[in-house]
């Protein structure tokens, strides 16, 4: 997608996920992508802003590739982005990521353990590759 002829940045949107460790993982994975791994090509957006129908947020979401990270099978992030007219290019659920880490103890809603941070990094690395694909800048990673 483009805005004024320039490639738009990819929006990575986690669920609000408050009160559960999977929600915290979705949020931390998002920060890892937007602040570190794909800083040049990815932004995030506050889901509550989108839900409340903020015009600027709606406009931005409709003109960007979106990646959603949901904590649980309610898929709040994916559903609300789609409801707002956004195109979800990639959607992942944190609980699914734990299938490769049976027995892992990720921590609590307020603090992640090393197991939790391991899953954060794994999700973030996979999705930052996807960000580069969507931007057509595969050579940069």
């Amino acid at each position, binding site marked *: 997608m483009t805005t004024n002829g320039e490639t738009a940045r990819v929006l990575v949107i986690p669920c609000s996920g*408050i009160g559960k460790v999977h929600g915290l993982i979705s949020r931390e994975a998002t920060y890892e992508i937007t*602040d570190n791994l794909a800083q040049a090509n990815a932004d995030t957006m*506050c889901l509550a802003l989108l839900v409340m129908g903020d015009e600027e947020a709606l406009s931005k979401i409709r003109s960007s590739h979106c990646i959603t990270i949901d904590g649980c099978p309610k898929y709040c992030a994916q559903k609300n982005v789609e409801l707002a007219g956004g195109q979800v290019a990639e959607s992942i659920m944190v609980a699914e990521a734990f299938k490769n880490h049976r027995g892992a103890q990720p921590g609590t809603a307020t603090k992640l353990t090393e197991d939790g941070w391991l899953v954060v990094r794994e999700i973030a690395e996979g999705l930052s590759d996807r960000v580069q694909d969507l931007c057509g800048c595969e050579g940069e990673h």
Partner: protein
Amino acid sequence: MARKYAILPCNGLDKLQGPLSREVALALVEETGGEIVCPVLLNSARPRYEKILGELPLIIIDGCGTKCASKLAGSLNLKVDRKVLIADEMKTSALTPEDSLSLGPAGLEFAKALATLLAEDMPEEPSADLSADFDSPVEYTSVTHDKFIFRIPAAGFHFNENDCWVRVKGTRARIGVSDYVQQNLTDISYFGPPIVGREIGQFDDAGTVESVKSTMDVISPVSGKIVAVNTALVDNPEIINEDPYEKGWIAELELTDFESDRELLIDGAAYGEIVKKKAAEAQH
């Protein structure tokens, strides 16, 4: 112990104040045992939070000036007991969180300190055992209209013309709806309780009762602070049909000024006459 609140943070993401609102909310739950309300889930699945929002007063924690949580509460017509704006709290706090969305030690310390401050400022949890004084048996009289018989307590109850009663014991009172209401509504299928901890005025709403026929706001005959609600009615609202004056009580209040409230209330005998008139009008 500080009383419990339903806590609705904005749970924001892309500004520092957002993650702080989330962290303050979680720390407040740890301190007071309240319940978190996720703003996104609330918007898409409100029934999930109906019970919590019915039983607990609501505190809103907004991060930035956009005030998404406040806007959401407004759009859903939620009654808000307290609002906190993190951006304002940051201006007055001696603690300065790091400028990082993923909170560092200073951010966590700020959140913990603010949660402690809020918890200390919350009113005490009302005593759970407030009901003993209301256990004494009630004697009834009745009025009739046509084939209908309406029970009315012989003494000790006051009524307003909105068909709600109050039974006073010292500085405490229980309120509820009359036998006329339960017969008029027929099978009551839903009870919406008022919020414990809320101050209400005389003739303010204090919950709802609903049947397939109609919905009725409970109009409080007295002013005061709600200290308990009859939670048994949430799962079994038919208790109001079975026993509207005793087991079907709606809420218990700490009275503010009963002597003044009393001037606008009537006794059982006068209420009986009103019931007869209403029943006659309903037939025509």
